[in-house]
């Protein structure tokens, strides 16, 4: 395993670590007032990959990024002292990029306080779809009864929390980066009157995880997601994209969002869409910026 470098590098799509004193509800404005901090990554314990992290200053801007190869549980002990030295009390935000699934559900409860209810008693929100070995997050469509439901392994979250606890690090927020990116983009679309009525295929890519959403007339019609796609597994990606391309109309527009500009998807798989209208909405430090602002 190579020693992590703190020199400026592009963060790889993965996770973000971030210091925060807020535990339950995460407000970026509160964090921006904190001292400069840090971030790191974790992700796949299945596929050895780079674990990037980023330092966020008091203004919520990315100041520095770094990464280290290996699993999070191996990288964290080496970097714990450095991370703690660059944070206040060791608060770090984490994005998980593996072992989760995103699906489409309808008519889920949206009663007041559903977010808290989902954390404390997810079965009352999800009903028979609830699996006690999973942790859930939901992104509601504001204009329809459809909702995106993310489920990730409870054991993976606990493993990360135990690792951090053993190193005196504190998880400020643990989230699924790809789900956060998709939620952010879908919110932007719903607030854009010119966009929300269009026929769209929204594609999110982060560190080997792919999520596709078809939106037509403001309605989410189809969702497909897969995490842990190995590099070079073109077959899987093609199988996921093909249904969306086959059902696409001439007016269908493809929106692509990755964690950083010129990411691995736009570099390797953009030709899957042939002559379709593709728009890459990815910005510099896209994942870090979303996680630091929201």
């Amino acid at each position: 395993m190579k020693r992590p470098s703190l020199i400026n590098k592009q963060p790889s799509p993965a996770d973000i670590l971030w210091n925060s004193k807020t535990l339950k509800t995460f407000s970026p404005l509160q964090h921006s007032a904190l001292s400069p901090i840090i971030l790191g990554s974790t992700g796949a314990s299945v596929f050895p990959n780079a674990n990037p992290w980023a330092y966020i200053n008091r203004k919520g801007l990315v100041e520095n990024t770094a990464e280290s190869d290996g699993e999070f549980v191996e990288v964290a002990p080496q970097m714990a002292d450095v991370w703690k030295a660059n944070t206040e009390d060791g608060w770090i935000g984490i994005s998980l990029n593996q072992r989760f699934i995103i699906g489409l559900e309808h008519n889920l409860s949206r009663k007041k306080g559903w977010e808290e209810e989902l954390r404390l008693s997810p079965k009352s929100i999800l009903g028979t779809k609830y699996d006690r070995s999973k942790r859930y997050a939901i992104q509601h469509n504001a204009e329809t009864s459809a909702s995106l439901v993310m489920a990730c392994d409870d054991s993976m979250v606990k493993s990360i929390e135990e690792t951090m606890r053993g190193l005196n690090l504190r998880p400020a927020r643990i989230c699924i980066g790809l789900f956060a990116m998709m939620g952010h983009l879908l919110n932007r679309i719903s607030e854009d009157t010119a966009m929300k009525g269009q026929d769209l295929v929204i594609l999110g890519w982060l560190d080997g995880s792919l999520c596709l959403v078809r939106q037509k007339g403001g309605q989410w019609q189809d969702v497909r997601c897969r995490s842990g796609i190995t590099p070079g597994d073109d077959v899987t990606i093609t199988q996921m994209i093909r249904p969306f391309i086959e059902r696409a109309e001439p007016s269908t527009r493809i929106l692509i969002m990755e964690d950083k500009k010129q990411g691995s998807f736009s570099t390797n798989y953009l030709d899957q869409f042939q002559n379709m209208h593709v728009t890459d909405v990815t910005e510099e430090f896209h994942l870090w910026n979303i996680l630091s602002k929201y």
Partner: protein
Amino acid sequence: MNYLIHDIKSERQNVSGGLPVGYKLIPILFYLVSASSIALSAYFYLSKKAYETAESDYQNRTSQAQSEEGSLQAKQKTIVAESKKAEVVAKWLEGSRPLQPVTVVIGRSINKESTIAELSLERNPDIPAHTFMQLKVDGGSAGQIENSLDSIYALGYETYSAQQVKGEKSTDFQATLIHKSK
């Protein structure tokens, strides 16, 4: 954009089990005690004000009563002084019994052979009951003076410090007459 990223980390376990349910009463009791304190303070303040007002009223009434008492005492002193003067006058008047009967009985007691050469009755200014009598009888027997004294005694007088001087043709008698009632 009102968007908040989800958080799937484990809920923090409570460090302690929390306070007993009864402790919820503490803030309620605090507010009750505070309200009671304010109410009692207001009550005592109003009571103190009422007491001060009553005390001031009583002091005014006391001073007024003392003023009236002084006035009455002054009047009483005046009356007592007047009464003492009146008593003195009454005593004097009571002691100053009429002397006319004495002169009358003395005159009637004189027999044919005797004449009253001199008769004086002088009342003591300080003791009006004491009347100094001087009687000079010319002629007559030695019992003339006795007759006159008997007449005087019949009026209820007694004689003190009586002195009688018998001359050749006259008899001088002087004594202090005091009525028996005294």
